[in-house]
């Protein structure tokens, strides 16, 4: 069913392209995209991880071979990305859990001008998530590449 793109409602039907851009997104919407990417990334890692760590059942030589293989700089960098992604996903996830259950949004008010927006009123929480995630990623960077 090829509906011409122009005939569709733009906001909701851009598919994967819409993850990145579909109009004027606020900070929280980009955090959502990043939350999705990091979640899928960590899940992908988990699947490989279950296979990789299962080699321990074949004894020390098999384990050493696996670890030797994973010592390649590409995998080390991948492991760093997993850590940084996890830190962001966990922090933003805790924010989402609160806000999806109705906390950290303020009290509902009647729609009388000047309007109050729950998410926007609590934007410092979103900023805090970003700052803490950057700090966490930096500490992990030091742990892995500098010290």
């Amino acid at each position, binding site marked *: 069913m090829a509906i011409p793109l122009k005939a569709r409602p733009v906001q909701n039907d851009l598919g994967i392209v819409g993850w990145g851009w579909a109009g004027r997104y606020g900070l929280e919407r980009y955090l959502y995209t990043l939350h999705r990417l990091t*979640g899928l990334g960590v899940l992908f890692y988990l699947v490989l991880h279950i296979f990789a760590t299962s080699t321990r059942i074949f004894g020390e030589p098999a384990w050493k071979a696996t670890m030797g293989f994973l010592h390649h700089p590409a995998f080390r960098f991948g492991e760093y990305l997993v850590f940084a992604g996890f830190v962001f996903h966990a922090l933003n996830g805790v924010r989402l859990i609160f806000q999806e259950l109705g906390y950290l949004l303020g009290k509902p008010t009647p729609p009388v001008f000047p309007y109050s927006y729950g998410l926007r009123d609590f934007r410092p929480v979103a900023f805090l998530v970003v700052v803490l995630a950057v700090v966490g990623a930096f500490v992990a960077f030091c742990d892995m590449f500098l010290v």
Partner: protein
Amino acid sequence: MKEGLGWFFQLFTGLFLVALLGVHMLGMHMDTLLPRFGMGYKDPLVFQEVLKRGHAPLFVAFYVVFLGLALYHGFYGLRAVLMEVWASSRTLSSINMLVWSLGLFLFFLGTAVSVGFFLV
């Protein structure tokens, strides 16, 4: 399963994963900075350490619970993404089948490895 319950359980597992995965990542990954402050492992990935953990009943229990929660949370999330990308009632049952079979397979594999390693 009721849709809302499955979602609530994803949030719930997320909270638990903060603790479980947090401990796992700090112990396994932050092996340079933490030992300097007298915490964590120095060489968590050498086989002797893997063996020690693998023969501690608490670690085995930890891994099986952790494995189950992480797989549920992650595959429920993948399901949500796929449902959005292929939004149609025809694809839903294929998506459900895909995430359940992959998730259960990985859960049994990981459990067998953890328990098997404990027993040898």
